Protein backbone atom coordinates (compact mmCIF):
# COMPACT_ATOMS: atom_id res chain seq x y z
CA UNK A 1 0.00 0.00 0.00
CA UNK A 2 2.88 2.37 0.78
CA UNK A 3 3.93 2.28 -2.85
CA UNK A 4 0.50 3.11 -4.17
CA UNK A 5 -0.67 5.83 -1.79
CA UNK A 6 -0.48 9.35 -3.15
CA UNK A 7 0.65 10.86 0.15
CA UNK A 8 3.02 9.27 2.64
CA UNK A 9 5.90 10.11 4.93
CA UNK A 10 8.88 8.00 5.83
CA UNK A 11 11.59 8.21 8.49
CA UNK A 12 10.23 11.61 9.48
CA UNK A 13 11.93 13.59 12.20
CA UNK A 14 9.88 16.70 12.86
CA UNK A 15 11.21 19.60 14.92
CA UNK A 16 10.74 23.29 15.60
CA UNK A 17 14.21 24.85 15.89
CA UNK A 18 15.92 22.41 18.27
CA UNK A 19 12.77 20.96 19.83
CA UNK A 20 12.08 17.54 18.36
CA UNK A 21 8.40 16.61 18.20
CA UNK A 22 8.54 13.31 16.36
CA UNK A 23 11.29 10.86 15.45
CA UNK A 24 11.35 8.11 12.81
CA UNK A 25 7.71 8.53 11.96
CA UNK A 26 6.25 6.56 9.06
CA UNK A 27 2.77 7.38 7.87
CA UNK A 28 0.65 6.53 4.86
CA UNK A 29 -2.59 8.22 3.92
CA UNK A 30 -4.74 5.62 2.12
CA UNK A 31 -6.12 6.95 -1.16
CA UNK A 32 -9.77 7.97 -1.14
CA UNK A 33 -9.91 7.70 2.62
CA UNK A 34 -11.24 10.11 5.19
CA UNK A 35 -8.27 9.91 7.50
CA UNK A 36 -8.57 11.47 10.92
CA UNK A 37 -5.62 12.07 13.22
CA UNK A 38 -6.41 12.11 16.94
CA UNK A 39 -4.38 12.25 20.11
CA UNK A 40 -3.96 14.27 23.30
CA UNK A 41 -2.83 17.91 23.24
CA UNK A 42 0.76 18.39 22.11
CA UNK A 43 1.07 14.84 20.74
CA UNK A 44 2.36 16.19 17.42
CA UNK A 45 -0.76 15.69 15.32
CA UNK A 46 -0.83 19.21 13.94
CA UNK A 47 2.92 19.02 13.39
CA UNK A 48 2.44 15.87 11.32
CA UNK A 49 -0.26 17.58 9.29
CA UNK A 50 2.00 20.55 8.69
CA UNK A 51 4.75 18.25 7.50
CA UNK A 52 2.36 16.43 5.16
CA UNK A 53 1.29 19.78 3.72
CA UNK A 54 4.94 20.93 3.40
CA UNK A 55 4.38 23.98 5.62
CA UNK A 56 6.93 22.38 7.95
CA UNK A 57 10.09 20.98 6.43
CA UNK A 58 11.07 17.69 8.10
CA UNK A 59 14.45 17.78 9.86
CA UNK A 60 15.05 14.29 8.51
CA UNK A 61 13.16 11.92 6.24
CA UNK A 62 10.78 12.94 3.52
CA UNK A 63 7.14 13.33 2.60
CA UNK A 64 6.23 11.75 -0.73
CA UNK A 65 3.48 13.06 -2.96
CA UNK A 66 2.68 10.87 -5.97
CA UNK A 67 5.99 9.10 -5.59
CA UNK A 68 8.19 12.19 -5.43
CA UNK A 69 9.61 14.14 -2.50
CA UNK A 70 7.10 16.92 -1.90
CA UNK A 71 9.75 19.63 -1.70
CA UNK A 72 10.99 18.81 -5.19
CA UNK A 73 7.79 20.04 -6.85
CA UNK A 74 7.23 23.68 -7.75
CA UNK A 75 5.06 25.24 -5.03
CA UNK A 76 2.07 25.76 -7.33
CA UNK A 77 2.24 22.16 -8.56
CA UNK A 78 1.83 20.89 -4.98
CA UNK A 79 -0.99 23.36 -4.45
CA UNK A 80 -2.89 21.88 -7.40
CA UNK A 81 -2.79 18.45 -5.80
CA UNK A 82 -3.00 19.17 -2.09
CA UNK A 83 -5.05 21.80 -0.25
CA UNK A 84 -4.56 22.91 3.34
CA UNK A 85 -6.94 24.56 5.79
CA UNK A 86 -4.59 25.78 8.54
CA UNK A 87 -5.64 26.42 12.11
CA UNK A 88 -5.23 30.16 11.80
CA UNK A 89 -5.69 32.28 8.74
CA UNK A 90 -5.89 36.03 8.44
CA UNK A 91 -8.62 37.72 6.43
CA UNK A 92 -7.35 41.12 5.22
CA UNK A 93 -9.51 44.01 6.46
CA UNK A 94 -12.70 44.43 4.49
CA UNK A 95 -12.15 41.58 2.03
CA UNK A 96 -15.36 40.16 0.52
CA UNK A 97 -16.45 36.53 0.81
CA UNK A 98 -16.34 35.83 -2.93
CA UNK A 99 -13.04 37.62 -3.18
CA UNK A 100 -11.54 35.45 -0.45
CA UNK A 101 -12.88 32.22 -1.95
CA UNK A 102 -11.54 33.30 -5.33
CA UNK A 103 -8.06 33.48 -3.85
CA UNK A 104 -8.11 29.69 -3.71
CA UNK A 105 -7.65 29.76 -7.49
CA UNK A 106 -4.09 31.05 -7.14
CA UNK A 107 -2.36 27.81 -8.16
CA UNK A 108 -4.43 27.66 -11.35
CA UNK A 109 -3.78 31.24 -12.36
CA UNK A 110 -0.95 33.15 -13.92
CA UNK A 111 -0.35 36.69 -15.05
CA UNK A 112 -1.98 35.91 -18.39
CA UNK A 113 -4.79 33.85 -16.89
CA UNK A 114 -6.18 35.89 -14.05
CA UNK A 115 -9.84 34.91 -14.11
CA UNK A 116 -10.91 32.22 -16.54
CA UNK A 117 -14.42 30.89 -17.06
CA UNK A 118 -13.29 27.83 -15.14
CA UNK A 119 -12.17 29.92 -12.19
CA UNK A 120 -15.59 31.49 -12.10
CA UNK A 121 -17.43 28.18 -12.24
CA UNK A 122 -15.23 26.50 -9.66
CA UNK A 123 -15.52 29.37 -7.17
CA UNK A 124 -19.30 29.40 -7.56
CA UNK A 125 -19.38 25.65 -7.07
CA UNK A 126 -17.16 25.80 -3.99
CA UNK A 127 -19.40 28.42 -2.43
CA UNK A 128 -22.50 26.46 -3.35
CA UNK A 129 -21.28 23.24 -1.79
CA UNK A 130 -20.27 24.95 1.46
CA UNK A 131 -23.53 26.88 1.55
CA UNK A 132 -22.00 30.34 1.51
CA UNK A 133 -23.31 31.51 -1.90
CA UNK A 134 -25.83 33.79 -0.22
CA UNK A 135 -22.98 35.54 1.59
CA UNK A 136 -20.96 36.20 -1.58
CA UNK A 137 -21.13 40.00 -1.34
CA UNK A 138 -20.68 40.30 2.40
CA UNK A 139 -17.45 41.27 4.13
CA UNK A 140 -15.63 38.43 5.88
CA UNK A 141 -15.37 40.65 8.98
CA UNK A 142 -19.15 40.64 9.39
CA UNK A 143 -19.55 36.84 9.47
CA UNK A 144 -20.05 34.57 12.44
CA UNK A 145 -17.39 32.04 13.38
CA UNK A 146 -19.22 29.17 11.69
CA UNK A 147 -19.80 31.09 8.48
CA UNK A 148 -16.21 32.23 8.41
CA UNK A 149 -14.89 28.69 8.80
CA UNK A 150 -17.04 27.57 5.87
CA UNK A 151 -15.76 30.43 3.76
CA UNK A 152 -12.21 29.33 4.44
CA UNK A 153 -13.14 25.77 3.54
CA UNK A 154 -14.71 27.06 0.32
CA UNK A 155 -11.43 28.78 -0.47
CA UNK A 156 -9.55 25.50 -0.07
CA UNK A 157 -12.18 23.66 -2.16
CA UNK A 158 -11.78 26.24 -4.92
CA UNK A 159 -8.22 25.03 -5.10
CA UNK A 160 -9.69 21.82 -6.64
CA UNK A 161 -7.22 19.42 -5.13
CA UNK A 162 -7.77 15.69 -4.86
CA UNK A 163 -6.10 15.80 -1.42
CA UNK A 164 -7.45 18.00 1.37
CA UNK A 165 -5.69 18.56 4.70
CA UNK A 166 -7.74 20.16 7.47
CA UNK A 167 -6.26 21.26 10.78
CA UNK A 168 -9.00 21.18 13.42
CA UNK A 169 -11.78 22.37 11.10
CA UNK A 170 -14.41 22.22 13.86
CA UNK A 171 -12.68 24.43 16.45
CA UNK A 172 -14.79 27.38 17.61
CA UNK A 173 -17.98 25.92 16.09
CA UNK A 174 -21.11 24.96 18.00
CA UNK A 175 -22.34 21.37 17.89
CA UNK A 176 -24.69 21.93 14.95
CA UNK A 177 -22.02 23.69 12.91
CA UNK A 178 -19.51 21.00 13.86
CA UNK A 179 -21.81 18.33 12.45
CA UNK A 180 -22.47 20.49 9.34
CA UNK A 181 -18.77 20.82 8.74
CA UNK A 182 -18.11 17.09 9.22
CA UNK A 183 -21.08 16.11 7.04
CA UNK A 184 -19.70 18.40 4.39
CA UNK A 185 -16.30 16.71 4.67
CA UNK A 186 -17.94 13.28 4.47
CA UNK A 187 -19.81 14.36 1.33
CA UNK A 188 -16.63 15.61 -0.25
CA UNK A 189 -15.08 12.25 0.51
CA UNK A 190 -17.97 10.01 -0.49
CA UNK A 191 -19.38 11.88 -3.48
CA UNK A 192 -16.46 13.75 -4.94
CA UNK A 193 -13.79 11.18 -4.15
CA UNK A 194 -11.50 13.59 -2.31
CA UNK A 195 -8.90 12.14 0.00
CA UNK A 196 -9.30 13.96 3.31
CA UNK A 197 -6.91 14.23 6.23
CA UNK A 198 -8.25 16.02 9.27
CA UNK A 199 -6.96 16.66 12.77
CA UNK A 200 -9.90 16.42 15.17
CA UNK A 201 -10.23 16.78 18.91
CA UNK A 202 -13.48 14.91 19.47
CA UNK A 203 -12.94 11.14 19.54
CA UNK A 204 -16.58 10.34 18.85
CA UNK A 205 -16.59 12.56 15.78
CA UNK A 206 -13.41 10.88 14.65
CA UNK A 207 -14.86 7.38 15.12
CA UNK A 208 -18.08 8.29 13.36
CA UNK A 209 -16.63 9.96 10.28
CA UNK A 210 -13.16 8.48 9.76
CA UNK A 211 -12.59 5.59 7.40
CA UNK A 212 -9.01 5.50 8.62
CA UNK A 213 -7.98 6.59 12.08
CA UNK A 214 -4.45 7.51 13.16
CA UNK A 215 -3.95 7.66 16.93
CA UNK A 216 -0.88 9.54 18.13
CA UNK A 217 0.85 9.98 21.47
CA UNK A 218 4.13 11.73 22.26
CA UNK A 219 5.01 12.13 18.61
CA UNK A 220 4.54 8.51 17.63
CA UNK A 221 1.69 6.65 15.99
CA UNK A 222 0.19 4.28 18.55
CA UNK A 223 -2.46 2.70 16.38
CA UNK A 224 -4.00 3.13 12.96
CA UNK A 225 -6.75 1.50 11.00
CA UNK A 226 -10.51 1.42 10.77
CA UNK A 227 -12.04 2.91 13.93
CA UNK A 228 -14.23 -0.14 14.57
CA UNK A 229 -11.25 -2.48 14.68
CA UNK A 230 -8.72 -0.39 16.60
CA UNK A 231 -10.65 1.70 19.10
CA UNK A 232 -10.84 -0.07 22.44
CA UNK A 233 -11.12 1.08 26.02
CA UNK A 234 -7.52 -0.01 26.58
CA UNK A 235 -6.22 2.08 23.69
CA UNK A 236 -8.04 5.21 24.83
CA UNK A 237 -6.87 4.80 28.40
CA UNK A 238 -3.29 4.20 27.25
CA UNK A 239 -3.28 7.27 25.00
CA UNK A 240 -5.36 9.78 26.95
CA UNK A 241 -4.95 8.41 30.48
CA UNK A 242 -8.72 8.42 30.87
CA UNK A 243 -10.72 5.31 31.85
CA UNK A 244 -13.58 4.90 29.37
CA UNK A 245 -16.20 2.49 28.15
CA UNK A 246 -16.55 1.89 24.44
CA UNK A 247 -20.13 1.26 23.31
CA UNK A 248 -21.79 1.17 19.96
CA UNK A 249 -23.03 4.47 18.53
CA UNK A 250 -26.81 3.95 18.30
CA UNK A 251 -26.91 5.97 15.07
CA UNK A 252 -23.96 4.66 13.07
CA UNK A 253 -22.81 1.55 14.89
CA UNK A 254 -19.29 3.00 15.11
CA UNK A 255 -17.39 2.95 18.40
CA UNK A 256 -18.55 5.54 20.90
CA UNK A 257 -16.44 6.58 23.85
CA UNK A 258 -18.07 7.29 27.17
CA UNK A 259 -15.79 8.35 30.03
CA UNK A 260 -16.15 6.27 33.17
CA UNK A 261 -17.93 8.18 35.91
CA UNK A 262 -15.21 8.76 38.48
CA UNK A 263 -17.20 10.81 40.96
CA UNK A 264 -18.39 7.80 42.91
CA UNK A 265 -14.82 6.65 43.38
CA UNK A 266 -13.74 9.96 44.81
CA UNK A 267 -16.68 10.09 47.18
CA UNK A 268 -15.57 6.82 48.74
CA UNK A 269 -12.21 8.35 49.62
CA UNK A 270 -13.67 11.52 51.15
Amino acid at each position, binding site marked *: MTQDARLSGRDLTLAYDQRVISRDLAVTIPDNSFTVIVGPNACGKSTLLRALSRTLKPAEGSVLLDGQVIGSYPAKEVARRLG*LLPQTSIAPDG*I*GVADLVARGRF*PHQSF*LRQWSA*QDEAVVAEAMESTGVSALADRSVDELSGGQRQRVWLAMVLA*QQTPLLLLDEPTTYLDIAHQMDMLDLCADLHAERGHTLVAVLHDLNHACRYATHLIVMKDGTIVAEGEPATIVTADLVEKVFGLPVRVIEDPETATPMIVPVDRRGVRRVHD
Partner: protein
Amino acid sequence: MNETLTSARPDTAAPFRPRDTLAWRSPKGRLSFLMRPRTLVVCLALVAVTFVTLVVSVSVGDYEIPLPVVPGALIGQGERLDVFFVQGVRLPRALTAIGVGAALGIAGAVFQSLSRNALGSPDIIGFTSGAATGAVFAILVVGASRVVVSLGAIAGGLVTAAVVYLLAMRNGVQGYRLVLVGIGVSAMLASVRDYMMTRADLTDALGAQIWMIGSLNNRGWGEAAAVWIGVALLAPVLLALGRRMRFMELGEDTARGLGVPTRSTQVIALAVASALTGAAIAVAGPIGFVALAAPQLARRLTRTGGTTLVGSALMGATLLVVADLVALRALAPTQLPVGVVTAVIGGGYLIWLLYTEWRGGRA
Protein backbone atom coordinates in the same frame (compact mmCIF):
# COMPACT_ATOMS: atom_id res chain seq x y z
CA MET B 1 -16.01 18.33 -15.48
CA ASN B 2 -16.33 22.05 -15.55
CA GLU B 3 -19.48 21.94 -17.66
CA THR B 4 -21.25 19.72 -15.17
CA LEU B 5 -20.26 21.97 -12.33
CA THR B 6 -21.64 25.05 -14.01
CA SER B 7 -24.87 23.46 -15.06
CA ALA B 8 -25.37 22.05 -11.61
CA ARG B 9 -25.82 25.59 -10.35
CA PRO B 10 -29.31 27.01 -10.20
CA ASP B 11 -30.20 28.97 -13.34
CA THR B 12 -30.87 32.06 -11.30
CA ALA B 13 -27.24 32.45 -10.28
CA ALA B 14 -25.75 35.58 -11.80
CA PRO B 15 -22.41 35.49 -13.59
CA PHE B 16 -20.01 35.48 -10.81
CA ARG B 17 -16.74 37.14 -9.99
CA PRO B 18 -15.00 38.77 -7.03
CA ARG B 19 -16.73 41.89 -5.77
CA ASP B 20 -16.34 45.15 -7.72
CA THR B 21 -14.30 43.69 -10.54
CA LEU B 22 -14.51 43.35 -14.28
CA ALA B 23 -13.13 40.35 -16.08
CA TRP B 24 -11.88 40.33 -19.63
CA ARG B 25 -11.25 37.10 -21.52
CA SER B 26 -9.90 36.35 -24.96
CA PRO B 27 -12.41 34.53 -27.18
CA LYS B 28 -10.87 31.11 -26.67
CA GLY B 29 -10.34 31.68 -22.97
CA ARG B 30 -6.57 31.34 -23.15
CA LEU B 31 -6.03 34.76 -21.68
CA SER B 32 -8.02 36.36 -18.96
CA PHE B 33 -7.50 39.47 -16.92
CA LEU B 34 -9.19 40.81 -13.86
CA MET B 35 -9.41 44.40 -12.83
CA ARG B 36 -11.30 46.68 -10.55
CA PRO B 37 -12.82 49.69 -12.32
CA ARG B 38 -12.48 51.75 -9.20
CA THR B 39 -8.77 51.04 -8.93
CA LEU B 40 -8.32 51.92 -12.59
CA VAL B 41 -10.19 55.20 -12.23
CA VAL B 42 -8.20 56.15 -9.14
CA CYS B 43 -4.93 55.31 -10.89
CA LEU B 44 -5.85 57.31 -13.99
CA ALA B 45 -6.90 60.23 -11.81
CA LEU B 46 -3.55 60.12 -10.01
CA VAL B 47 -1.69 60.06 -13.33
CA ALA B 48 -3.71 63.05 -14.49
CA VAL B 49 -3.06 65.04 -11.31
CA THR B 50 0.64 64.22 -11.53
CA PHE B 51 0.81 65.34 -15.15
CA VAL B 52 -1.05 68.60 -14.54
CA THR B 53 1.16 69.36 -11.55
CA LEU B 54 4.23 68.60 -13.64
CA VAL B 55 3.16 71.13 -16.29
CA VAL B 56 2.29 73.73 -13.68
CA SER B 57 5.59 73.33 -11.86
CA VAL B 58 7.47 73.79 -15.12
CA SER B 59 5.52 76.95 -15.82
CA VAL B 60 5.39 78.83 -12.53
CA GLY B 61 8.19 80.35 -10.54
CA ASP B 62 9.80 83.71 -9.91
CA TYR B 63 10.61 83.63 -13.57
CA GLU B 64 7.17 82.99 -15.08
CA ILE B 65 7.00 80.94 -18.29
CA PRO B 66 3.55 81.15 -19.91
CA LEU B 67 1.92 77.78 -20.55
CA PRO B 68 1.84 78.13 -24.38
CA VAL B 69 5.60 78.62 -24.40
CA VAL B 70 6.28 75.51 -22.32
CA PRO B 71 5.95 72.83 -25.04
CA GLY B 72 8.36 74.74 -27.30
CA ALA B 73 10.84 75.23 -24.52
CA LEU B 74 10.70 71.53 -23.77
CA ILE B 75 12.12 70.70 -27.18
CA GLY B 76 14.59 73.57 -27.12
CA GLN B 77 12.63 76.19 -29.06
CA GLY B 78 12.11 79.74 -27.85
CA GLU B 79 14.04 82.19 -25.74
CA ARG B 80 17.27 80.95 -24.24
CA LEU B 81 16.22 81.74 -20.72
CA ASP B 82 12.91 79.90 -21.11
CA VAL B 83 14.68 76.85 -22.46
CA PHE B 84 17.24 77.02 -19.69
CA PHE B 85 14.66 77.15 -16.92
CA VAL B 86 12.41 74.48 -18.41
CA GLN B 87 15.04 72.03 -19.57
CA GLY B 88 17.81 72.68 -17.14
CA VAL B 89 16.03 73.45 -13.88
CA ARG B 90 12.33 72.79 -13.53
CA LEU B 91 11.69 69.68 -15.58
CA PRO B 92 14.47 67.58 -14.04
CA ARG B 93 13.42 68.67 -10.58
CA ALA B 94 9.78 67.72 -11.16
CA LEU B 95 10.77 64.41 -12.74
CA THR B 96 13.02 63.70 -9.77
CA ALA B 97 10.07 64.35 -7.49
CA ILE B 98 7.88 61.91 -9.42
CA GLY B 99 10.54 59.21 -9.45
CA VAL B 100 11.40 59.57 -5.77
CA GLY B 101 7.73 59.61 -4.82
CA ALA B 102 6.97 56.47 -6.81
CA ALA B 103 9.97 54.67 -5.33
CA LEU B 104 9.00 55.58 -1.76
CA GLY B 105 5.32 54.77 -2.30
CA ILE B 106 5.87 51.30 -3.68
CA ALA B 107 8.61 50.46 -1.18
CA GLY B 108 6.34 51.54 1.66
CA ALA B 109 3.53 49.34 0.34
CA VAL B 110 5.86 46.35 0.26
CA PHE B 111 7.06 46.86 3.81
CA GLN B 112 3.53 47.36 5.12
CA SER B 113 2.22 44.31 3.30
CA LEU B 114 5.01 42.00 4.43
CA SER B 115 5.02 43.18 8.04
CA ARG B 116 1.19 43.28 8.10
CA ASN B 117 1.66 46.50 9.98
CA ALA B 118 0.36 49.90 8.95
CA LEU B 119 3.52 51.40 10.42
CA GLY B 120 5.92 49.04 8.64
CA SER B 121 8.66 50.91 6.82
CA PRO B 122 12.27 50.55 5.67
CA ASP B 123 13.24 52.02 9.03
CA ILE B 124 12.55 48.60 10.50
CA ILE B 125 15.92 47.31 9.39
CA GLY B 126 17.66 50.57 10.24
CA PHE B 127 18.23 51.56 6.64
CA THR B 128 16.98 55.13 6.87
CA SER B 129 18.71 55.79 10.15
CA GLY B 130 22.02 54.49 8.80
CA ALA B 131 21.67 56.53 5.64
CA ALA B 132 20.98 59.70 7.61
CA THR B 133 23.97 59.11 9.86
CA GLY B 134 26.20 58.39 6.87
CA ALA B 135 25.08 61.58 5.17
CA VAL B 136 25.40 63.74 8.29
CA PHE B 137 28.90 62.39 8.82
CA ALA B 138 29.77 63.21 5.21
CA ILE B 139 28.39 66.75 5.54
CA LEU B 140 29.68 67.67 8.98
CA VAL B 141 32.93 65.78 9.36
CA VAL B 142 34.14 65.33 5.79
CA GLY B 143 32.49 68.46 4.41
CA ALA B 144 31.72 66.60 1.23
CA SER B 145 30.02 67.42 -2.07
CA ARG B 146 26.47 66.31 -2.93
CA VAL B 147 27.60 63.15 -4.71
CA VAL B 148 29.78 62.09 -1.81
CA VAL B 149 26.93 62.77 0.59
CA SER B 150 24.71 60.49 -1.48
CA LEU B 151 27.36 57.80 -1.46
CA GLY B 152 27.77 58.28 2.28
CA ALA B 153 24.04 57.84 2.74
CA ILE B 154 23.94 54.65 0.67
CA ALA B 155 26.99 53.24 2.41
CA GLY B 156 25.58 54.11 5.83
CA GLY B 157 22.24 52.54 4.98
CA LEU B 158 23.71 49.33 3.60
CA VAL B 159 26.19 48.86 6.41
CA THR B 160 23.48 49.47 9.00
CA ALA B 161 21.01 47.11 7.36
CA ALA B 162 23.70 44.43 7.17
CA VAL B 163 24.73 44.95 10.81
CA VAL B 164 21.12 44.79 11.97
CA TYR B 165 20.50 41.64 9.97
CA LEU B 166 23.64 39.96 11.31
CA LEU B 167 22.93 40.94 14.91
CA ALA B 168 19.39 39.62 14.62
CA MET B 169 20.58 36.29 13.25
CA ARG B 170 20.51 33.43 15.68
CA ASN B 171 19.06 30.16 14.46
CA GLY B 172 17.57 32.12 11.62
CA VAL B 173 16.11 35.58 11.68
CA GLN B 174 12.85 36.12 13.53
CA GLY B 175 10.78 39.11 12.48
CA TYR B 176 10.27 40.29 16.03
CA ARG B 177 13.95 40.16 16.91
CA LEU B 178 14.89 41.89 13.67
CA VAL B 179 12.60 44.77 14.51
CA LEU B 180 13.92 45.17 18.06
CA VAL B 181 17.57 45.04 16.99
CA GLY B 182 16.75 47.56 14.28
CA ILE B 183 15.35 49.92 16.88
CA GLY B 184 18.37 49.52 19.12
CA VAL B 185 20.84 50.22 16.33
CA SER B 186 18.77 53.14 15.05
CA ALA B 187 18.75 54.67 18.51
CA MET B 188 22.54 54.45 18.76
CA LEU B 189 22.94 56.03 15.35
CA ALA B 190 20.50 58.78 16.26
CA SER B 191 22.55 59.67 19.31
CA VAL B 192 25.75 59.74 17.25
CA ARG B 193 23.92 62.07 14.87
CA ASP B 194 22.73 64.23 17.77
CA TYR B 195 26.30 64.47 19.00
CA MET B 196 27.60 65.60 15.61
CA MET B 197 24.73 68.05 15.20
CA THR B 198 25.22 69.73 18.58
CA ARG B 199 29.00 70.04 18.20
CA ALA B 200 28.99 71.29 14.63
CA ASP B 201 29.12 74.82 13.31
CA LEU B 202 25.60 76.24 13.03
CA THR B 203 25.58 76.66 9.25
CA ASP B 204 26.90 73.16 8.61
CA ALA B 205 24.43 71.71 11.08
CA LEU B 206 21.60 73.48 9.31
CA GLY B 207 22.76 72.00 6.00
CA ALA B 208 22.76 68.55 7.54
CA GLN B 209 19.34 69.17 9.07
CA ILE B 210 17.91 70.17 5.70
CA TRP B 211 19.35 67.02 4.15
CA MET B 212 17.70 64.99 6.87
CA ILE B 213 14.33 66.63 6.28
CA GLY B 214 14.60 65.75 2.62
CA SER B 215 14.83 68.27 -0.16
CA LEU B 216 14.67 68.50 -3.93
CA ASN B 217 16.28 71.91 -4.18
CA ASN B 218 18.81 72.14 -7.02
CA ARG B 219 18.25 68.59 -8.21
CA GLY B 220 19.12 68.21 -11.90
CA TRP B 221 19.19 65.61 -14.66
CA GLY B 222 21.79 63.49 -12.89
CA GLU B 223 19.49 62.91 -9.92
CA ALA B 224 16.42 62.46 -12.13
CA ALA B 225 18.19 59.83 -14.21
CA ALA B 226 19.50 58.03 -11.14
CA VAL B 227 16.11 57.62 -9.50
CA TRP B 228 14.26 56.79 -12.73
CA ILE B 229 16.76 54.09 -13.63
CA GLY B 230 16.30 52.70 -10.14
CA VAL B 231 12.51 52.69 -10.48
CA ALA B 232 12.60 51.24 -14.01
CA LEU B 233 14.83 48.36 -12.94
CA LEU B 234 13.38 47.54 -9.53
CA ALA B 235 9.68 48.38 -9.58
CA PRO B 236 8.80 45.68 -12.16
CA VAL B 237 10.30 43.04 -9.86
CA LEU B 238 7.99 44.16 -7.08
CA LEU B 239 4.97 44.34 -9.37
CA ALA B 240 5.67 40.78 -10.46
CA LEU B 241 5.71 39.74 -6.81
CA GLY B 242 2.59 41.76 -6.02
CA ARG B 243 0.11 38.93 -6.52
CA ARG B 244 2.09 36.66 -4.23
CA MET B 245 2.27 39.33 -1.56
CA ARG B 246 -1.51 39.76 -1.59
CA PHE B 247 -1.82 36.06 -0.90
CA MET B 248 0.74 36.25 1.88
CA GLU B 249 -1.63 38.65 3.64
CA LEU B 250 -3.83 35.58 4.31
CA GLY B 251 -1.24 34.22 6.72
CA GLU B 252 1.89 32.25 6.02
CA ASP B 253 0.42 28.74 6.27
CA THR B 254 -2.55 29.57 4.06
CA ALA B 255 -0.30 31.19 1.49
CA ARG B 256 2.02 28.19 1.41
CA GLY B 257 -0.97 25.89 1.16
CA LEU B 258 -2.00 27.80 -1.95
CA GLY B 259 1.42 27.29 -3.45
CA VAL B 260 3.00 30.67 -2.78
CA PRO B 261 6.78 30.39 -2.20
CA THR B 262 6.66 32.61 0.87
CA ARG B 263 10.30 32.64 1.94
CA SER B 264 11.81 33.62 -1.38
CA THR B 265 9.07 36.16 -2.01
CA GLN B 266 9.76 37.79 1.32
CA VAL B 267 13.53 37.98 0.92
CA ILE B 268 13.45 39.26 -2.65
CA ALA B 269 10.70 41.80 -1.98
CA LEU B 270 12.46 43.18 1.13
CA ALA B 271 15.79 43.47 -0.66
CA VAL B 272 14.33 45.18 -3.72
CA ALA B 273 12.17 47.54 -1.67
CA SER B 274 15.21 48.50 0.41
CA ALA B 275 17.22 49.18 -2.73
CA LEU B 276 14.44 51.44 -4.06
CA THR B 277 14.35 53.31 -0.77
CA GLY B 278 18.12 53.67 -0.98
CA ALA B 279 17.89 55.21 -4.44
CA ALA B 280 15.25 57.67 -3.28
CA ILE B 281 17.23 58.67 -0.18
CA ALA B 282 20.46 59.08 -2.09
CA VAL B 283 18.76 61.52 -4.45
CA ALA B 284 16.54 63.52 -2.13
CA GLY B 285 17.36 62.64 1.47
CA PRO B 286 15.00 60.74 3.75
CA ILE B 287 11.76 62.50 2.83
CA GLY B 288 9.40 61.57 5.59
CA PHE B 289 5.91 60.20 5.47
CA VAL B 290 5.56 59.41 1.75
CA ALA B 291 6.40 55.72 2.23
CA LEU B 292 4.04 55.56 5.18
CA ALA B 293 1.11 57.57 3.86
CA ALA B 294 1.01 56.70 0.15
CA PRO B 295 -0.04 53.03 0.60
CA GLN B 296 -2.62 53.96 3.24
CA LEU B 297 -4.10 56.70 1.09
CA ALA B 298 -4.09 54.52 -2.01
CA ARG B 299 -5.89 51.68 -0.34
CA ARG B 300 -8.50 53.96 1.15
CA LEU B 301 -9.15 55.61 -2.20
CA THR B 302 -9.32 52.35 -4.14
CA ARG B 303 -11.19 50.57 -1.31
CA THR B 304 -9.27 47.37 -1.83
CA GLY B 305 -9.03 44.92 1.02
CA GLY B 306 -5.27 44.84 0.82
CA THR B 307 -2.26 46.57 -0.59
CA THR B 308 -2.16 48.00 -4.06
CA LEU B 309 1.36 48.44 -5.39
CA VAL B 310 0.59 50.43 -8.53
CA GLY B 311 -1.80 52.67 -6.63
CA SER B 312 0.81 53.26 -3.92
CA ALA B 313 3.50 54.14 -6.46
CA LEU B 314 1.23 56.59 -8.26
CA MET B 315 0.02 58.05 -4.99
CA GLY B 316 3.62 58.53 -3.86
CA ALA B 317 4.50 60.29 -7.11
CA THR B 318 1.45 62.56 -6.91
CA LEU B 319 2.06 63.37 -3.27
CA LEU B 320 5.68 64.33 -3.82
CA VAL B 321 5.27 66.37 -7.01
CA VAL B 322 2.41 68.36 -5.45
CA ALA B 323 4.36 68.78 -2.21
CA ASP B 324 7.40 70.04 -4.08
CA LEU B 325 5.35 72.63 -5.94
CA VAL B 326 4.05 73.84 -2.60
CA ALA B 327 7.55 73.80 -1.10
CA LEU B 328 8.75 75.99 -3.97
CA ARG B 329 5.93 78.48 -3.99
CA ALA B 330 4.51 78.65 -0.45
CA LEU B 331 7.11 81.04 0.94
CA ALA B 332 8.69 82.15 -2.34
CA PRO B 333 11.37 83.20 -2.89
CA THR B 334 12.43 81.07 0.09
CA GLN B 335 12.41 77.39 -0.84
CA LEU B 336 11.29 75.01 1.87
CA PRO B 337 12.70 71.49 2.01
CA VAL B 338 10.01 69.29 0.49
CA GLY B 339 10.05 67.01 3.55
CA VAL B 340 8.38 69.78 5.54
CA VAL B 341 5.50 69.88 3.10
CA THR B 342 5.05 66.11 2.70
CA ALA B 343 4.80 65.84 6.45
CA VAL B 344 2.24 68.60 6.80
CA ILE B 345 0.14 67.75 3.72
CA GLY B 346 0.38 63.96 4.03
CA GLY B 347 -0.15 63.98 7.77
CA GLY B 348 -2.99 66.46 7.54
CA TYR B 349 -4.72 64.49 4.81
CA LEU B 350 -4.38 61.26 6.78
CA ILE B 351 -5.84 62.96 9.84
CA TRP B 352 -8.77 64.20 7.75
CA LEU B 353 -9.33 60.75 6.26
CA LEU B 354 -9.28 59.08 9.64
CA TYR B 355 -11.56 61.75 11.03
CA THR B 356 -14.25 61.38 8.34
CA GLU B 357 -13.93 57.63 8.12
CA TRP B 358 -14.40 57.13 11.82
CA ARG B 359 -17.25 59.58 11.99
CA GLY B 360 -18.96 57.25 9.53
CA GLY B 361 -18.44 54.50 12.06
CA ARG B 362 -16.27 52.34 9.85
CA ALA B 363 -13.02 50.94 11.11
